[in-house]
């Protein structure tokens, strides 16, 4: 039977969220920033499944399905924006996009 308590899953998820946040805040390449967001959303899913098992029902897993839906929508729109950006400015580095800075 299942011997691992949910706290350990939460710790793995915390590690993934921290790695993803570091990548999101420090990388300059927009493709890798989007991948870091995927890492963070995966950590959320681990959390939701762990809580679903702790609560003894399937609601957490249903929420994880919704999170996956939102992640798919986010990836599609984000990559569309990236292609439009590359077509206009010929760059994929986040800090070279400074049209709204003064």
């Amino acid at each position, binding site marked *: 039977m*299942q*011997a*691992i*308590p*949910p*706290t*350990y*899953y*939460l*710790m*793995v998820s*915390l*590690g*993934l969220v921290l*790695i993803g*946040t*570091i*990548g999101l*805040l*420090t*990388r*300059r*390449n927009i*493709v890798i920033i989007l*991948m870091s967001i*995927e*890492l963070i959303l*995966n950590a959320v*899913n*681990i959390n939701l*499944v*762990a809580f*679903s*098992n*702790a*609560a*003894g029902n*399937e*609601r957490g*897993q*249903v929420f*994880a399905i*919704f999170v*996956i*839906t939102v992640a*798919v*929508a986010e*990836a*599609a*729109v984000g*990559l*569309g924006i*990236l*292609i439009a950006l590359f*077509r206009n400015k010929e*760059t*994929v*580095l*986040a*800090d070279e996009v400074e049209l709204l800075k003064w």
Partner: protein
Amino acid sequence: MAPDVLFFSFFSLLALVGGVLTVTRRSAVHSAISLIVSLIGVAGLFLLQRAEFLFAVQIVLYIGGIMVLFLFVIMLVNLDEAAKLRQFNRQWWIAGACVLALGAEALYFLRQGAGSLRLAVRSSGAGPDGNTERVADTLFTGYLVPFEVASVLLLVAIVGSVFLARKRT
């Protein structure tokens, strides 16, 4: 060592090492491959928690769908010049300090509350057997309206991404 502990360590190591490689590699293709490794680790953690439906969704949708989308965009967008430049921005040490503080805080409270979080004893007999059936039961009885809203969200995302990425004439 119990097989549960062994599998848990293996899959969490896969997820974490894949994540670290994803944010540190210079080439975006290497990052994408590392992210696939990390996603496989997360899928294994789903399987260990008896969420078989989410395991299948993770493999089919994330690894088969989103990662292929990423690789296509890497192919469309020229990343060779970006790979030769600096990979991290100048504020990396502020970000690192903030994330370390956040991690220490979250780990402290996680250890404080570890005793109150334990696995529920599942009552057998009520509801159908099998994870997929139970997830479908919950999804289509309690969460039907969010399900429909999610489908509208996907439609909006399709239309929006096609509109954003099309060629201006």
